[in-house]
């Protein structure tokens, strides 16, 4: 082979190999959980050692928000659908904070398994709709649930 052409072939082989391994490694990496925040399941399973500052993300459990009698302290639970973790926060909550809403909290887990947050941020989803539509959806969802429950009851009889 012509030396010039041989050199070019080597270069192309090198490039193909490098790009292929880049793609492969990136795919592998994306299949791993590289989230910068921990889920309630990870916290509940004790995967996060107490006393380390972490970010925890999840949905606020409906009906779990309890405000202190005095002061700004709030306790609530966050869930990822599998496990729940109690959170304590002393400060002003953002507007979007409400039950059922996704949040990201910065803080640490204490030895009793309570997540003490130093900052609570409300996450909002990519859905935008007017309140009436949301109410209608909610209604439809609940009706659907009720129907399903009724159906389940019937089926179990």
């Amino acid at each position: 082979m012509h030396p010039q052409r041989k050199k070019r072939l080597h270069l192309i082989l090198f490039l193909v190999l490098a790009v292929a391994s880049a793609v492969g490694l990136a795919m592998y990496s994306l299949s791993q959980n590289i989230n910068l925040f921990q889920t309630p399941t990870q916290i509940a399973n004790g995967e996060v050692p107490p006393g380390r500052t972490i970010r925890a993300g999840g949905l606020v459990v409906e009906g779990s928000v309890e405000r202190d009698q005095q002061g700004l302290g709030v306790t609530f639970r966050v869930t990822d659908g599998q496990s729940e973790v109690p959170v304590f926060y002393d400060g002003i909550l953002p507007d979007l904070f409400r039950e059922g809403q996704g949040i990201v909290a910065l803080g640490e887990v204490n030895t009793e398994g309570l997540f003490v947050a130093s900052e609570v941020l409300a996450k909002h989803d990519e859905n935008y709709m007017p309140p009436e539509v949301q109410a209608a959806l909610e209604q439809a969802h609940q009706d659907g649930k009720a129907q399903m429950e009724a159906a389940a009851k019937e089926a179990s009889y």
Partner: protein
Amino acid sequence: MWQWLVRLYHRLGSPKWFYEMTERWIFWLALAAGGSAIVGLVLGLLYAPADYQQGDSFRIIYIHVPAALLAQSAYMMMAVAGAVYLIWRMKMAAWVAKVIAPVGAAFCLIALLTGAIWGKPTWGTWWVWDARLTSMLMLLFLYFGVMALQQAMESEEASYKAGAILALVGLVNIPIIKYSVEWWNTLHQPATLKLTEKPSMHPDMLWPLLIMIVSTYLFFALVVILRTRNEILWHERKRQWVRKILES
């Protein structure tokens, strides 16, 4: 088709043709960009319903999303124009790449500022070191880097080439911005508009957004044309056809 493309390429490469052609476009572009902006803003600010979670603060979307989209596409256009210059040595491409940088940086700044303002009432903070926000900030710095590098180069040709090389290397940031909301699922919500799926937005809110996006791109085209015409005037100032313009 191919021949038509080749002809278009040669025409676009001719500063004189571009200057004379765009003379007629400017008015219509300005009209279209301004008109669609008015329609989009009236629909968005007055007629779109308030969001079920965020209330009226979501109306910032009508400038935030178009600006953020444009900041990214402008960067890609700058890199492509730079590559065209590097490969075919087409002067017009270098001028276009040069004038895109400040405009793209301005839109990147708008996206960052409005995002910060939007973040305060919704998330509860002006700024988080979330991957989307950080990578967008890096895009702004990349724009500044390209501008500073072009400024620092002594010869004009070298400045175009250097800017093009940096813009091409910086392209790696674009997929990072795009996927940041999925890779690091932190505060910034995932994309509302997707090419492949139905957008997760009520039509009354969606239409103004789409109109604003179109308006922003038209505006960008207008400004880039205006700036490119200035570059042409400056570089071709000794040519006969520019003399005629100057004498009139």
